[in-house]
Each structure stands twice: as structure tokens, then as C-alpha cells.
């Protein structure tokens, strides 16, 4: 008994041949389906170069287009040929030309031999999973899709709209419950032949020809009809990005793939020579050395999707420049703004630095220069103290400062005499802690030795500016942690509010926890999730748990502190 590989190929034929020969070397027959879009000449040359290998056969060619019926037709033709030509075959594995077997073929053969009745096909009802990109889930099965999504997007969308408006619905053939899942399956001869030889097949085929992306639903749905034992997962490792396109593996993923514990991975960059070399020539050596850690791949690709869709909070750069309101965090870290404190206390800045452990600047937005802590002229990221440069873009100055000093709490003084352009930014920012002693700007004026007319004029100006600022701070759009005291009120009991503020800033070096909390025993959790999947209900919020795996290793990892300035 062996397994047969059905391989759908549309480009990089040389890689496909390389992989096919690898399968056949282990005794697995390969049926190739070459896309009709491949020119005749190329196909003939390809066929010729494989002709010395009796285990590689070619089936009838169909024109394959993403999301259309061709892919299913191709799988059908190839599977029929496989079942007919190779009676030894018990499992049929559907793969593409850019799939790469990671573990020795014999291991896959043994694995399947131990599970002779199991069909490996990811198959879930539409209601249970949020896989679909683009908003079509159940409607895939109830609308018609005669237009190509890739080439005729406009007609595709209009026709969907029209059907929705007219409430046209197709009838799903009786007895079928639509299921979806990865298009890469591995089915037993029994199940596959039952699907292909079904007396109702013509009805089903006619129905699925007009379903959207039938390659993700045809076998997935019909397998539910016949299989006695569905293991709802794909044996092929395949990760998708936020647009539903598969992630591609490169040479530098070698270590990752070694630890993936999967039989087959897709998709591989055709020029990833090291991967092909490692996994096709020295397979046993490639996999055996390392402990499997499939979760790592999951994390890396999940992170990539998050970076693309959410990005890093508080970062403004060449390829991330969010519109107003879409910032996902206006700044990267918490910071504190003090208004009126230096005016009221003589040595407020050094005192605060000592009490809070944070970095305390003077008036960063002062009119003369940027008063960095300690009188520095430059600070992290080579931000300069030139007031002109700062005022060229004050908001970017603030966000850059907070970004550059990630990991260290920043505090600075502010007042009505300063550049006011950051008022909305800081007010809208949940990271900002703004404490205002209203009216404290009057103290330096009071102490100064100037003409009263000047003082009055200045006071009027400052008051106006501060009242505008307070209005912003009291507006409904304000998300910052704002505290405003009237100066009089503050002076009566100053310590209590100051204590609150400093407590909120917290010590910058939190006391390290001496012991890690004990985790609950997770043995069997993966199986539990798998059982849910087998029932057609896919739990996705917790991420990928391996099914057959030792319990989570509880030894405490000795993590080195990793500092990013």
C-alpha cells in the first residue's frame, strides 16, 4: 500500500519535476496536472523530460484560474487517473507544484498506513470560521459567479450586488451541507472514489461550477457525505496573509521549517535553492536534529499580518502615515505633561526626577529652545534643541521624542507661553497624562521686575491661551488622563494630588517578580480542540495547538532582557 500524489502545476515546471522525482523515488506514483495556460511546447518538453519515470503520468489538462472550477476539474481528472492506474494507492495526496515535502516520504507513508481509514481534509461549516476575505462566506454557495474575480472584478461585484438586491438564491442540492477548508487534502481511496463515482456527481458538479472558489469547498463538502472518519486538518502547512494569499517560504525559513513538524509545506519560492536542497537530498538529516516547534511559524506569520494591518503604535514613517483617527495609538508610550508645577515649586524638576525615576525635561516647547533634561542640545534619535526645527513640525517632534525614548518615561513642563500646536494631539492621546495647575503662569510674572503694563498685557495673553487649552482638555474628544486644579485649590493641599500623579507614573524599574505563576496542565488540550474541529466547529481564537504533542514545557525560560532604545 502506498500513497499517490496528485500534483497541480502551472509554472516553474523544473521544480515540480524535482519534487515529483523525489516522491517517486520513495515509490509514490505522481499524477501531474499541467495548467492549460502553459504553452504546448513547454508542456511537451516537460512531458518528455519526465518520460523516463514510469511513476509519473500526466492527466487531461484543464484551464485553471484562481477561484474558478478549473482547479476542481483538474483534481478530479488527476484523481480518477490515479485510482485507475495505481491500484496500490490507498491515500491520495493533493499537492501543488510549489509544495515541498519536509519529512521523509517514508514517514508520511507510515503515518497514513497507521490511519488507513482517515481522511485528512480541513472542513468546517461557514458559520464557524472567519476565514473568508472579502465578505463572501455563505453567499459563496447561494449566489452565482459567472464572472472572473481577477479579470472582471467590476462585473463580478455588480453581479453579486444585483443578486443580493433581487434576493436571488440558488438552491443547494439536497443533502449537502456546505463546508469549507484548505484546498490541500489527503483522502482515502474509499472516500475519493465514492465522490468521483457518485451517481449524483453530475448534479453536484453543475452546482459547484457556479460556486465561488469551489476548490475550497467541493471536496470539503462532499467528503462529509462519505467519509467515515474525517480528521479536519490539512497535512500541508500553509499560511495566509491578510488578503488571503499564501505566504512564501525562503531559504532563511530553513530552521523554521525544520521545526514545523509538518509533512508538506507550501508555498516555496522557486529559487529557494537551499530549501530544495536541504529537504530533497538530505531529508532525514534535515528534520531529525531539532525539536518540533510548529507554533513558531504560526507566530511569525500572525505577526506579519498584524504589522500590515495594525502597525506599531505611535510610529510615523515612510510606509505608515495614518490618517487622522486611524493612528491606533497616537504615540508609542505613556508620558506626562506638567503645566504650572515649575512655576509653583522651586525645584520641581529634580524633585520629580528623583521621586518618579522618570526623565524630566523642562519646557520642551519653550519659545527660545527645547529644554531637554540636563541642558542637553541633542537627545535620543539625534533630535535637536533648535526651536525652529521643532516648530517646523511640533507634533512630529513630540511623537518622535516619545518613539525614540521607548522604555523610558518622559515628563515635561508645558505652559501658555510655549508652542501650542501639540494641544490636540496630546489631548486625544490616551498615553498622555496631563496635569494642569490653572493660572500658575501668573507666579513668574508676579516675581518679575517688569512694567505693570507689560505684565498685564502678557497675563491677558497667557490667560487666553491657557483657557483655550483647557477648553480642549475638557472637550469630548479628549482621551488623555487629565487633571486640572485651580491654583488656589491646589495650594491648599498640594501633596495629595502630587502623590496621585507620581503613583500613576509608577517606578520606572518595577520590582522583578521572583517567581513565575504556575500554568494549568494543558495535556490533551490540542486534542480537545481537534475534536471540536472534527465536529465542524473550528475554534480559532486560541491559535494553533498541535494535536499530538507533549504537554507545554513548563521549565522557566531564562530570558535575557532585550532593550530597545
Amino acid at each position, binding site marked *: 500500500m502506498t500513497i499517490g500524489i496528485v500534483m497541480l502545476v502551472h509554472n516553474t515546471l523544473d521544480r515540480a519535476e524535482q519534487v515529483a522525482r523525489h516522491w517517486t523515488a520513495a515509490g509514490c506514483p505522481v499524477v501531474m496536472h499541467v495548467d492549460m495556460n502553459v504553452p504546448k511546447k513547454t508542456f511537451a518538453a516537460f512531458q518528455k523530460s519526465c518520460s523516463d519515470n514510469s511513476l509519473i503520468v500526466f492527466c487531461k489538462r484543464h484551464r485553471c484560474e484562481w477561484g474558478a472550477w478549473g482547479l476542481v476539474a483538474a483534481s478530479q481528472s488527476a484523481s480518477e487517473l490515479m485510482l485507475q492506474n495505481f491500484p496500490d494507492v490507498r491515500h491520495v495526496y493533493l499537492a501543488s507544484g510549489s509544495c515541498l515535502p519536509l519529512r521523509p516520504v517514508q514517514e508520511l507513508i507510515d503515518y497514513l498506513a497507521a490511519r488507513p481509514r482517515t481522511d485528512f481534509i480541513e472542513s468546517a461549516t461557514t458559520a464557524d470560521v472567519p476565514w473568508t476575505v472579502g465578505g463572501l462566506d455563505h453567499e459563496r454557495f447561494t449566489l452565482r459567479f459567472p464572472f472572473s474575480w481577477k479579470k472582471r472584478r467590476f462585473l463580478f461585484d455588480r453581479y453579486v450586488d444585483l443578486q443580493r438586491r433581487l434576493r436571488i438564491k440558488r438552491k443547494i442540492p439536497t443533502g449537502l451541507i456546505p463546508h469549507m477548508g484548505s484546498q490541500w487534502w489527503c483522502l482515502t481511496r474509499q472516500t475519493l472514489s465514492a465522490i468521483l463515482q457518485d451517481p449524483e456527481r453530475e448534479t453536484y458538479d453543475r452546482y459547484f461550477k457556479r460556486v465561488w472558489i469551489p476548490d475550497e469547498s467541493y471536496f470539503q463538502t462532499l467528503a462529509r457525505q462519505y467519509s467515515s472518519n474525517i480528521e479536519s486538518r490539512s497535512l500541508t502547512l500553509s499560511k495566509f*496573509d*491578510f*488578503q488571503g*494569499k499564501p*505566504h*512564501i517560504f*525562503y*531559504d*532563511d525559513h530553513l530552521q523554521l521549517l525544520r521545526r514545523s513538524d509538518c509533512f508538506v509545506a507550501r508555498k516555496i*519560492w522557486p*529559487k529557494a535553492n537551499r530549501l530544495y536542497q536541504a529537504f530533497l537530498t538530505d531529508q532525514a538529516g534535515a528534520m531529525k536534529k531539532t525539536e518540533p516547534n510548529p507554533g513558531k511559524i504560526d507566530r*511569525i*506569520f500572525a*505577526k*506579519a*499580518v498584524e*504589522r*500590515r*494591518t*495594525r*502597525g*506599531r503604535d505611535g*510610529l*510615523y*514613517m*515612510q*510606509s*505608515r*502615515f*495614518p*490618517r487622522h483617527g*486611524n*493612528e*491606533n495609538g497616537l504615540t508609542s508610550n505613556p508620558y506626562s505633561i506638567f503645566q504650572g508645577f515649575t512655576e509653583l515649586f522651586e525645584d520641581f524638576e529634580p524633585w520629580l526626577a528623583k521621586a518618579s525615576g522618570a526623565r524630566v525635561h523642562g519646557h520642551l516647547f519653550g519659545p527660545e529652545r527645547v529644554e531637554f533634561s540636563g541642558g542637553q542640545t*541633542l*537627545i*535620543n*534619535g*539625534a*533630535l*535637536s534643541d*533648535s526651536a*525652529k*526645527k521643532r516648530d*517646523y*513640525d511640533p507634533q*512630529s*517632534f513630540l511623537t*518622535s521624542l516619545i*518613539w*525614540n525614548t521607548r522604555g523610558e518615561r518622559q515628563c515635561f513642563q508645558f505652559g501658555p507661553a510655549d508652542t501650542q500646536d501639540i494641544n490636540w494631539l496630546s489631548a486625544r492621546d490616551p498615553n498622555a497624562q496631563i496635569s494642569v495647575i490653572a493660572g500658575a503662569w501668573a507666579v513668574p510674572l508676579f516675581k518679575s521686575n517688569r512694567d505693570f503694563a507689560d505684565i498685564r498685557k502678557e497675563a491677558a495673553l497667557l490667560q487666553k491661551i491657557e483657557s483655550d487649552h483647557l477648553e480642549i482638555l475638557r472637550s469630548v474628544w479628549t482621551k488623555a488622563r487629565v487633571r486640572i486644579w485651580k491654583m488656589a485649590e491646589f495650594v491648599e493641599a498640594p501633596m495629595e494630588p502630587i502623590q496621585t500623579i507620581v503613583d500613576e507614573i509608577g517606578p520606572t524599574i518595577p520590582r522583578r517578580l521572583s517567581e513565575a505563576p504556575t500554568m494549568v496542565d494543558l495535556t490533551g488540550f490540542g486534542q480537545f480542540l481537534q475534536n471540536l474541529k472534527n465536529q465542524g466547529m473550528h475554534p480559532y481564537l486560541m491559535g494553533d495547538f498541535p494535536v499530538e504533542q507533549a504537554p507545554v514545557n513548563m521549565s522557566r525560560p531564562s530570558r535575557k532582557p532585550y532593550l*530597545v532604545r
Partner: protein
Amino acid sequence: MRVRRRRRLLRCMRKSRELRSVQNNTAAIRPNDVILVSTFRNEKVRLPYFLRYYRDLGVDHFLFVDNDSTDGTLDYLNGQRDVSVWNTKHSYKRANFGVDWMNWLQRTYGNDHWTLVVDPDEFFVYPFCDTRPIQALTDWLDNSSIRSFSAMLVDVYPKGKLDENPYQEGQNPLEIASWFDSGNYTIKKNATYGNLWIQGGPRSRVFFPETPKSAPALNKIPLVKWTKRYAYVSSTHALLPRGLNQVYDEWGGEKASGALLHTKFLDTFTAKAQEEQSRKQHYAGSREYAAYADKLSEHPELWCKWSEKYINWRQLEILGLMSKGNWA
């Protein structure tokens, strides 16, 4: 906008008459080749390392415009199979600072190719550039239906005086100029073309402390899947049609982007600045070069306590100067 684009294209056709072919190996360009386009004057000392760097990245063909070099550049390039050279004695400035020439070269030889437009002192880095060739990037961009790729200029400079460590032909300039500014950039959006306008870095910090507005632009879109309809507008800062300038995400996410390490500040810089100031062939009457020459007499030091030493692209990624986007 369409009129503007057409005008650019007509102009580049007209200006193409100024170019005289010296060495044309373009017959060797195969489909899917990545093509590098560059204009220079008297940069022979930089070319050996430049060519090596980009050949190692996987660039398949080089299209050069030599603007009347007198240092034997043409002799050096003579006979290199993957290099095609055009020569011109005409004004760099009147060819829209070389853009017209390059638009024509790209239009003629770069149609349906990924083309990378860089100066000889610019070194392109992109996510995973230490492990994946440039074709991995362009294949991925093709796969994701992305037509243009942004790479911001990051000025690198030496520690100490500029002429302390003379640059030797063939040497990696990053060995000398290995420091950069990590977090003093400002970004504005250009409403006309939709591109971002980035300023800052050491040039703004040292040469334009009082007039940050006139500091040079650092945003660049050097890598484009070219078609005959495209045209650069001003250097590689902006393109037409405008959709190509949308290399940034506006909904909070990060698109993939790279950086151009700009190794202008070597010992060769002082002489260059003086020459360019008198030639008046650069943008805004060589205002930038006037500022340099002015300051250079004082032997300024670009390095400061907060300068970062360049390590690799991952460092630039962590610092937020570039991003992997959803490429993993």
C-alpha cells in the same frame, strides 16, 4: 495629471537626443531581469564597490548615463557585459536633474521590468536583503500586486572629520561612514502628487538648523515595475501616475519598505561640494551645496552622541525607519 505625465514623456523623448550610446549591451536583458538605472559624473572611485554590491543583490543589468566624466569612468566600464552606458555633455539641470534621461532609458529598456533608480552613493537595503536576493522581493511584490516600493534616504556619515579616513576604490563606504540619525525626521503629505515628503537627518540637523524647510527631501521610490506610461517627476521622490506614490498605509498598518543608505559624506565630499556649487547644476541653484560649502569651511562634525551605528536592516526595522510590512 495625465497632461503632466504626457508632457514628461514627450520631454524625455526630446531629451533623449542628448544621449550618445557608448556601450549598448541591452540585447542581453532577459524578461524578468531587474535593471538598475543611474546617472553620474566623476564617480569612478565609487563604481567598483557599487557594481559589486548590486550584482550581489541580484541586479541583472545596469543602465548608466555618464554626464561628461573626466576621471576615466568610461574606460573603467568598457567591456563590462551587464553594463550599458550613454554619454552626454548636456546640462544635468536642464534635463530636470537627469530625470528626463532616466525616464527615457526606463521607457526604452525597462518596460515590464522591475527598475531600480539609485545614485552611485546610494545603497539599497530592503527587508531580508541579507538572506534573499532582490528577485525574491520583486517576485513577492508581483505576487501581492504592488507596483512600487519605497526606500527612504538614510544619510550615513563617519565619526570625526570627513577627510580623516580617505575612501579607497573598491572599499565598502559603510566601513567609513557607518553612523546615522535614527529619529529626527518629519513627514508631510504632498497634496499634488500624493507622495510623502520626508525631511530631517544629519543634513537638516547640521546644515539647515535655522531653515528646516529648505532641507533636502529624503523620501524616494526607487523600485518600480516599469511600464512605458510611467514617469518620474522630480528625482525619484514622486512618480506619475499618482497611484504609484501610494507606498504608505493610511489606516494604521505598515506597508513593506526599505532604505537607501546615502554614503555622500566621505572625504570626496568637500571637493564635490565645491565643484557642484560653482557648476550650479543642482536643485534650487545648488542651494544645498551652497549650504554645505558654507559649513564645510568650519569642518563640522556630523557625528553626535546620539548617532546610531549601522548594523543591518533589522536595526532599521526596529528603529522604525523601514518595515517588513506583511512580508515574512
